[in-house]
């Protein structure tokens, strides 16, 4: 009996070693490729290898809003002053219970119009439509019955008049040049059907007229750790996946899409919590199935500053939603897994998200369980395990800090010595403790899934000028 258990534990050990080695290699490859790509981009920019053009093509900016009265006016105000010649803003009020619409109507002097909407995609019924008059940028507010974020985005797509649209969260702010940057991949290659921007934590910066005038790490530990996490994810992992058109996520906080392809693919799915990921996977599937040449790109110079949750309660709600969204998308599109037709998207990308994003908290939990059993049967080499864990944590910390400084350097941001010290400490804390907290949240995300699978949960918003 004992011999059998020991044999099983040995097999499990081998599984974990392989699992961790693959993950460590992936992390390493992503940081190296990310750093190298950013270095090349910087060099190319210096020697004028960039498309410089005053006007590219018109864009519709879609802002779905649900109970966003705290930030909506400021966010729309910031969108009004972007460095781009022709664009419109469409705010879709998804049946808010607060004064989101009233604040917009009052601030921008919007007028009720009787506008017919072309229903290319299904969405809930329109209640009222308001439009601005005489503004430099046309602003439309659509009040509709509550149907979720995907439903609001579908409504925005229906109402948009331009061939490309950008979706942005109501609590996010764009840098002045973000639109110019996000269209660059389309100008370089018109097979590009979607472009993801870089999401960074808004609590770190002071933004004046769309320009970053100051950067410092916040004192809130939770936010700080999210800064490290975002930098590692957006500057490393996504750049690596971008090399083989393998990104399965374009953050809902900032992404550009070609409208006709999205309409043909069926628009946003209103039944999932991760409508952003679901859409991207569907674009991959749609284009591959219909043999449409396409690329989905990631543009790290198109920056969107988004509010990170400041409390554990809010973070839990956000991450629960992300994890369930990931689960729903992967289950819904399980047919792409390991199918030749979908190439690296169905193999590398899908398996990565399945094994190292969706299942990793469960695998880690299983690992802890195995350790306890191993101690019980006396087959665990405790000093080795401790040293291995410390080495692994140090390894991840070094990668995080590399990604963090890489970004600071390539964006020409100035940070204080205190922030450097904070970053050094936090990258270790993030990898040891934050990771465990995240694992716990992700494992418990499924508790009550059947009852609450469609619920988003509200997150406390702060006015943008009170962030830093």
């Amino acid at each position: 009996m004992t011999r059998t258990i020991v044999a099983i534990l040995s097999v499990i050990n081998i599984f974990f070693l392989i699992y961790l080695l693959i993950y460590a290699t992936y992390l390493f490859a992503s940081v190296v490729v990310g750093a190298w790509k950013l270095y090349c981009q910087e060099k190319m920019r210096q020697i004028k290898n960039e498309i410089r053009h005053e006007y590219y093509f018109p864009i519709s900016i879609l802002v779905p809003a649900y109970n966003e009265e705290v930030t909506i006016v400021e966010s729309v105000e910031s969108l009004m002053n972007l460095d781009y010649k022709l664009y419109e803003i469409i705010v879709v009020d998804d049946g808010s219970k607060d004064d989101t619409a009233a604040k917009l109507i009052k601030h921008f002097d919007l007028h009720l119009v009787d506008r017919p909407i072309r229903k290319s995609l299904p969405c809930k019924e329109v209640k009222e439509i308001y439009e601005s008059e005489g503004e430099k940028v046309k602003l439309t507010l659509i009040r509709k019955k509550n149907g979720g974020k995907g439903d609001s985005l579908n409504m925005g797509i229906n109402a948009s008049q331009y061939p490309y649209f950008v979706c942005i969260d109501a609590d996010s702010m764009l840098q002045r040049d973000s639109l110019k940057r996000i269209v660059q991949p389309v100008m370089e290659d018109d097979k590009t059907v979607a472009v993801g921007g870089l999401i960074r934590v808004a609590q770190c910066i002071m933004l004046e007229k769309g320009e970053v005038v100051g950067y410092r790490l916040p004192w809130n530990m939770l936010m700080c750790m999210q800064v490290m996490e975002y930098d590692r994810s957006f500057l490393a992992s996504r750049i690596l996946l971008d090399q083989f058109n393998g990104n399965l996520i374009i953050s809902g906080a900032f992404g550009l899409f070609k409208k006709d392809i999205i309409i043909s693919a069926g628009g946003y799915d209103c039944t999932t919590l991760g409508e952003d990921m679901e859409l991207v996977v569907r674009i991959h599937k749609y284009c591959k199935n219909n043999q449409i040449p396409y690329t989905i790109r990631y543009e790290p110079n198109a920056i969107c500053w988004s509010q990170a949750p400041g409390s554990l309660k809010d973070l839990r709600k956000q991450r629960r939603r992300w994890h369930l969204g990931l689960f729903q998308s992967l289950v819904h599109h399980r047919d792409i897994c390991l199918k030749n037709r979908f190439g690296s998207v169905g193999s590398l990308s899908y398996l990565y998200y399945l094994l190292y994003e969706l299942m990793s908290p469960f695998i880690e939990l299983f690992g802890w369980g195995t350790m306890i059993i191993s101690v019980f049967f006396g087959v665990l080499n405790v000093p080795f395990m401790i040293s291995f864990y410390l080495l692994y944590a140090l390894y991840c910390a070094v990668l995080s800090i590399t990604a963090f400084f890489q970004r600071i350097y390539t964006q020409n941001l100035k940070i204080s010595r205190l922030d450097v010290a904070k970053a050094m400490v936090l990258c270790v804390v993030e990898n040891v403790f934050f990771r465990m907290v995240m694992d716990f949240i992700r494992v418990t995300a499924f508790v009550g899934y059947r009852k609450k699978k469609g619920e988003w949960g509200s997150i406390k918003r702060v006015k943008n000028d009170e962030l830093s």
Partner: protein
Amino acid sequence: MRQDIVNMVVYLYIFICIALLLFNIAYILYSKRKEIHAKKRMEQMKKRQLAYISGEFQNKEFTKREKRALVGKLKKIRYLIAFEEALNVCAEEVSLKKVNEYLVKCREVIYETALEYVKRPAMERAYFGYFIATHMGDVSKKYQGIAESLLLYFADSTVYCQENVLQAFYVLGAEDALDQAFGVMKDSGYRHQYRLISDGLLRFRGNQYELAVRLWNNRRRYEESTRIGVIQFMTRLSEDFSEYLLPELAALEGEESFAVIRYFGSHHCQKAEPVLIGILQQQDEFSVPAAAVLANYPSESVKDALKQALNSPLWYVRKNAATSLLTIGLSKKEQESLKNSEDRYAREMFLYVLELQRKERERYDKNDRGNS
């Protein structure tokens, strides 16, 4: 054994990561040092240029040795950058005219350097294209021949290299080179954004009408996106190209047909009217721009066709038809009839566009009163 392997791998990764961190730090220090060196190089170049522009050598030509030395330097990208920056500084400190005279003196040097860059990577060729596009506009007559060398840059190039070299052709007024470049781009499978092409062609420093006719006549040798760019370029010129484009309007095919239809919105051509009405009545994707451009053809037959188009199943056809009808002008009776149309979709669209135009007029009147 297994532990040893794992340890070894983890240590190896940590070593590489630390190396990466050190590389980052070293790179930051190196960049700072590079900046200092770049500044020094620029100062040296400026000193040398000033000697030829307004100093001791201003009436002298380059000797063979000097030419060779300068080519030797400029073939390295860092010196070309310094040379370019120094030209900007000299133009500010002395005068643009003097700098242009200096560039004429440098003609042979730049020609030789252009050939040297054929062997360089695409990103460096792109920079050379940028350099020519930025500085040779005023001395383009002296630099016509350089276009031949720049054409070679298209082999195994990037979108940036293509764009910068095309920019150089526009400022040089190199008609032949543009024609050939568009052909080479098709042969090499490069697809350039049509907006970049049409806007670029408008910067062409030569006879734009002749260029448009030539590019139109050779359009079959170009890629579709280039053809669209050429049609958009023709649309934005004041000259009339109707005789060239009218046959295309009758045979709609592919993306470029949208550009052809839009051309007739900007350039009125009576012969196009029945063809455009025919396109509108086809009720397909081409009917959308046709409904919009018919606003430029005020006649009873157009009005009738647009009124019918208000009942189209296509949303954008209805919208453009309503806008065009109101642009052409409707009598009160006609307006009332459309407001009470039995087709709900036609009625809603007409009322919405009517309201939009009323607001637009009100705003215009308000601004007008404010100005007076």
